[in-house]
């Protein structure tokens, strides 16, 4: 469903991503792991059309989306859960969720969507009138997930969902990802927490210094000694 072909993205002169290729099948959960500064967020933002792509193509169901606007991409059923949640912090929880279904096709399902969101995250229902910026980190992450789900996405881009959260919350976040995946949504999961990401994913890619350096099933990647040492903390 999603296929990147030799994508290059840069900031000014510097190239942050060079010749990135990967693919993600319908209903698949693919992880991209990599250390700090590898270019993971750059990749998500480029895919979401928030950053210009210097060269290369990105196909979504066969259509090249590399030159679309973010709004056009949203219309094609792609939603983002950005790094650091990036909520509309001065707005209430419910307003954040409503913004999730801003695009015309999703708007009709607002009530149903809110019910589902509050069923999935009951605490958000209790706090629907609270200003989202005043929630705890874990609750803000729930809002970010619920907001994206309100868009009824076919493809979900999730960037570093475990960032800054306590281990017990991280566990819940990954359970949520598994539940969303079980409903048939395709997911591209970007994570620095390679152990967790490989547990969740069906396939994974390793990104480092702006390049894809490995790919395979989680088992294959875990068995490769250089990957285990560098990204999974398997000391020898």
């Amino acid at each position, binding site marked *: 469903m999603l296929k990147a072909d030799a994508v290059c993205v840069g900031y000014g002169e510097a190239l942050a991503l060079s010749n990135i290729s990967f693919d993600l099948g319908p209903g698949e959960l693919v992880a991209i792991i990599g250390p700090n500064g590898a270019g993971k967020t750059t990749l998500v933002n480029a895919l979401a059309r928030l950053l210009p792509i210097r060269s290369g193509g990105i196909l979504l169901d066969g259509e090249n989306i590399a030159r679309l606007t*973010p709004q056009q991409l*949203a219309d094609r059923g792609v939603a*983002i859960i950005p790094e650091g949640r990036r909520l*509309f912090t001065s*707005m209430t929880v419910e307003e954040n969720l409503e913004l999730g279904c801003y695009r015309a096709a999703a708007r009709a399902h607002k009530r149903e969507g809110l019910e589902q969101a509050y069923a999935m995250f009951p605490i958000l229902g209790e706090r629907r009138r609270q200003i989202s910026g005043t929630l705890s980190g874990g609750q803000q992450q729930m809002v970010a997930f619920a907001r994206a789900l309100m868009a009824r996405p076919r493809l979900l881009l999730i960037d570093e969902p475990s960032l800054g959260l306590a281990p017990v919350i991280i566990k819940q976040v990954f359970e949520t990802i598994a539940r969303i995946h079980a409903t048939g949504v395709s997911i591209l999961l970007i994570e620095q927490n390679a152990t967790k990401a490989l547990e969740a994913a069906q396939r994974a890619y390793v990104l480092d210094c702006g390049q894809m350096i490995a790919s395979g099933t989680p088992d294959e990647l875990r068995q490769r000694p250089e990957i285990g040492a560098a990204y999974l903390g398997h000391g020898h």
Partner: protein
Amino acid sequence: MSATLFGQSVLSGIFAGSLYALMGLGMSLSWRYLRVINIAHFGLVFLAAYMTYEFAGVRGFSALAVALLLIPLFFMLGVIQQVLILRFNVNEFSSLIVTYGLAIIAEAVIQLIWSADFVRYENRALHGNVEVGTLLLPMADILLVVIAVGLCVATWAAMRFTWLGKALRAGLDNPAIAAAFGVPNQRLLLLVSGFSAALAAVAGVFVALLYTLAPSQILSWLGVVFAAVLLGGLGNPLGLLAAGMLIGVSEAITMAVTAPSWAPVVPFTILILLLVLWPQRV
């Protein structure tokens, strides 16, 4: 001071305050949502006032018809202004200078067309007064209060409850993420600038109805409207309405108990007190 004089002062303060709010509404919205401190707003207000004078006063068209034509026309002017501001990457500070320049150009254009002399539009339909006990309420002022309060409340409600209002607030919090959920930020900003200029047209019609016009007066409202906009909170129509009324009524009472020349001191005293006592508000 007699009760009647006091009552009449409060009333005239409410009338003045309504006009401050009506003039300030467009400024407040463009300051908050476009990051444009739009001095040209006053140029538009006077342009609309002079066009009302010209078409309703001199040429005898109905004032309502003129107003209904000015609104879409000014909406377009507002959109064009914002397109240019975006095109030339004008930031918040430079917008102050650029739009000041536009206001001066508006003044020159008005002077060229209508001369520097005073002109006055007399509207017979709105000429009468309503008497309530010993108080006199001019029809034009009553209409002004209704329109100003109506527009402020409607704008507040639209910002709070509609898709458009929520999308604008989201765009202010986080434009990139709003865009990723389909919010067309740029188009909404053009809508705000158009709406803001349309409000200038409405304010201009009332300036024509209520005041004698001269091009040199274009910036005479600037200080008091700035004070109301800041005191009310940027992008806060109800706060603006309350601030406008507070300033208008304080001015009117000051004038009644001291001398008219003291009135301009009031809004700035209030504004300076606000800046000192509650700096995070501004």
